[in-house]
Each structure stands twice: as C-alpha cells, then as structure tokens.
C-alpha cells in the first residue's frame, strides 16, 4: 500500500522518539529508578505545584507506589506501551496511554527524589504532538514543538542574561564545577575523570569561558524562530550544551536530547529511511 509522505514522516519521527524514550527507560530500569525498584519510598515533596497536589490527592501513590501488584503492573505497562508506540506509531490509544504513564512516572520520580528536577521535562512534552489523529494536525504540533524547544533555550538565555545575572558573573563556571563535583572528586580520587576535573579546576578561565559560551549557544537557538535553514546546525547546539554541562557540571540532562528530532530535515529523514527501511514499516493496516 502507498503511504502518503506526511504519514511516512510521522511514522519515522514517532519511532525515533519512542525508541529513544525506550532506551532511556531501560537505562532507568537498570539504574533501579523505575517505580518497581523504589521499594515504597517514604519522604516526598509536592511544593506549591498543583500537578503534584493533584497527583497526591488522586490517591495514585497508593496504587502505584505502595501496592506491590500495582507497582509491577505500572512498570510493565510503561514499557509495554512504549514498545507498542514503536510498533504501532499511528495508534493513538497507545500513544496517549504511554504519554499519561510517562507523565505519572516523571511526577512520581520528582516527588520521591524530593526535588522537582528538570531532566524528564522534555520527554513529558514530546509525546503530545502524537496524540492527535490527523497527520496535518500532528505536523502543526510537531512544528510547534520545534518552536517550543527554541523557546526553552532562548528563555534560559534571557534568564541568565537579563533576569538573573549568571552571564555577567565570570566565576560561575568554576564555582558550579566545584560545587557539583566536589563529592565525586572526593570519593573517586583516582579516576581519569577526576584527573580531567582537577586540570580544569587548576585552569578556571577555561571553565568560566566555557560557561559563557554555553549561555551564548543557548541564545543562538533564537535563530530557530526566524528560519529553518539552519536546523541541521541548530540540532548540534543542545547536544554540545548538554554534553558540556554533564561533563563539566555533573548536570545530567542527556534525556533532553530526544528534542534533536524536531530539527531533523527532509534530507536527514531520507538518509535514515534509506539506511533503516524498517522504520517505515507500517502495522496500522495489518
């Protein structure tokens, strides 16, 4: 059967996104931080955040955290629905179910690490465009997601330059590195990474300049609002930003890189589908 180009694009993008998410869910599974591994944690933090309040009031923690059957069922469904989204990328029921399950997972994770952390924020949002049935609506939402990603980095730039003061504070790079990595360096004095960190700590100008450069890279994402011509290059900025902040500041936002798919151009898709034609296989009409 002939698949329309837009549907083709949707199938490939869906699969790339959900494969990425599946891999990182596995990563979290082996790190023992999926819900069935949490072993009924006790302390929590809701903050003044209504989503977390709604989560608590709904009684969900009793079902998926403090219930042995419920927690195993939740984890199984989380993985199963992510897998089903890869196999049947056009079946909304699977995508919507997985989107909700992932949102619940992210809120639960943040609640019980007693810190409303950002690493899962983009994954929480990125499934939303796939919730709609019509391919034209999906395309519009996917385009909106691209703008939103540009907005996130631009906003971060604005915060650091105009609302906060990090950009104007030269020592921020070295201070962040010391603050975030002191414990690692203390407990792992003989590793290669510690030697690298020590080198950079001994040369703070490199870290401080790197910090300014990262903020400027965030600011460069504003280009995405005005043209798509540079998407192939914009794609690398989040990669550089998150790898740098991971290595030099121990800020583990690698899961954010699911966002790079919003910058894929037609040329990128042609290359990918030529290399991996299985990504195009549709089971919708099977």
């Amino acid at each position, binding site marked *: 059967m002939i698949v329309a180009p837009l549907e083709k694009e949707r199938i490939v993008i869906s699969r790339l996104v959900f494969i990425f998410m599946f891999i990182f869910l596995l990563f979290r599974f082996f*790190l*023992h*931080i999926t819900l069935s591994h*949490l*072993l009924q*944690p*006790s*302390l929590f*933090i809701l903050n*003044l*955040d209504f989503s*977390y309040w709604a989560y*608590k*009031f709904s009684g969900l923690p009793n079902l998926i955290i403090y219930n042995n059957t419920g927690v195993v069922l939740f984890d199984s469904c989380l993985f199963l629905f992510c897998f089903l989204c890869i196999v049947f990328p056009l079946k909304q029921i699977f995508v919507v179910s997985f989107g909700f399950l992932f*949102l619940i997972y992210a809120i639960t994770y*943040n609640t*019980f*690490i*007693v*810190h*409303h952390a*950002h*690493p899962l*924020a983009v994954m*929480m949002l990125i499934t939303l465009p796939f919730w709609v049935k019509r391919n*034209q*609506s999906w395309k*519009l*939402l996917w*385009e*909106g997601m691209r*703008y939103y990603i540009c*907005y*996130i980095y631009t*906003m*971060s730039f604005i*915060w*650091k330059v105009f*609302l*906060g*003061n*990090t950009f104007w*504070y030269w*020592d*921020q790079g070295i*201070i962040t590195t010391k*603050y975030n*990595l*002191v*414990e690692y360096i*203390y*407990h792992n004095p003989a590793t290669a990474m510690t030697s690298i960190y020590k*080198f950079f*700590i001994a040369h703070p100008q490199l870290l401080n300049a790197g910090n300014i450069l990262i903020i400027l890279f965030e600011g460069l994402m504003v280009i995405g609002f*005005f043209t798509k011509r540079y998407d192939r290059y914009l794609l690398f900025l989040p990669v550089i930003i998150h790898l740098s902040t*991971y290595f030099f*500041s*121990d800020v*583990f936002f*690698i899961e954010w890189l699911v966002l790079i798919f919003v910058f894929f151009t037609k040329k990128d898709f042609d290359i990918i589908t030529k290399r991996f034609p299985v990504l195009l296989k549709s089971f919708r009409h099977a």
Partner: protein
Amino acid sequence: MKVENLYLVKLFYGQKILLVVVLLFIVLNLTANFIFRSEQTPIFKWDLYSTAMPAQSSYSFLEVRYNQNQLLKFPHTWQEPQKLFFTNTLDYFIAIKRNNNTDPYKNYFANDWSRRHAYIKKLLPDVNLYNDTTEINAFPSWYKRYLEQYIQQSVWRIDVYEKKVEFINGGLNEISSSLIYKLL
C-alpha cells in the same frame, strides 16, 4: 517571509482549537516566567543556574558508611538520576531532624499557607501535603532496603557523616568529618 507561512497563521487557518491551546500555553508560560517568575505547573520554568552562585571557601556534603565502615559510592557521574534517591532524600531527612523532627513544609503549609488560603484548604481532600511522623519514621528502613538493592548485600548499620572539604592546589583537603546521624 510570507505571512501565511507564519506558524500561528497556519494554526489559525488549519486548526483553530490548537491555536487556542498554543496561545494559552504561550500566555501562561510567558506570564509565569516574566511576571510571577515562578513555575508553570508541572515544571516549565527555564531559570536553572541563572542566579550567580557565591564563591565558597569550603564545601559540605553527606557521606554514608554502612556495615563495617564501607563507603556508599557512585563511581560514574551518569548514575546521577539514581544517586538523587540516596543523597537528596538523606539531605532532606537530616533537614527534618534538624528542624525538630518536623518537615519544613509542614511549618509552611500548616502555619502559613492554610491560614492565608483557608477557603481553598476547605475544598481540598484531607491529605497531608507534607511529611508527617509516619513518613519520617519509615525513612531509615526504606533507606536500608534501597541501599541493599544497590549494593546487593544485607545492611545492618548505616552511619551518616558530614564532610567539610576545601580545594587546595588543585586537590581536596578534608577540613572536618563528623558523625551526625546513626540511621540504623
């Protein structure tokens, strides 16, 4: 650039419902960031590391030793998402202990927020928004279970130390180390 190619114009002609949703999200997010400078639920505020961190002459952190003085250690930085379950929760537990065994949020919710928003409080279900005695008392046994899962051996003793260190000549110098809590 042609006007009809603008994203919001395409939404206007193609999907009016989506246009309303997108505009609402934009307004809420911009209002949250620029006016209230706070989070738009559940998380969407992008101000991480936007406030300058003051220089410190020394750094403090908690260190966990279990059984026969074995160190709880995370050899890889990519273990961060897991490490948070050990370090953040323990930090918070110690903060509760130092606050007369009371969750700092209890002070806020019970003594401040609930009084200022009595009409909302009345509408909410009778569920604690903070940790109470049950959660606090359950923490040590949960920590033991979670630690056992991580190190794959049974744990019969957990000591929490507070370390204070300083950077000197590219290396670290320990200033002090004190046992602050016996978790088990």
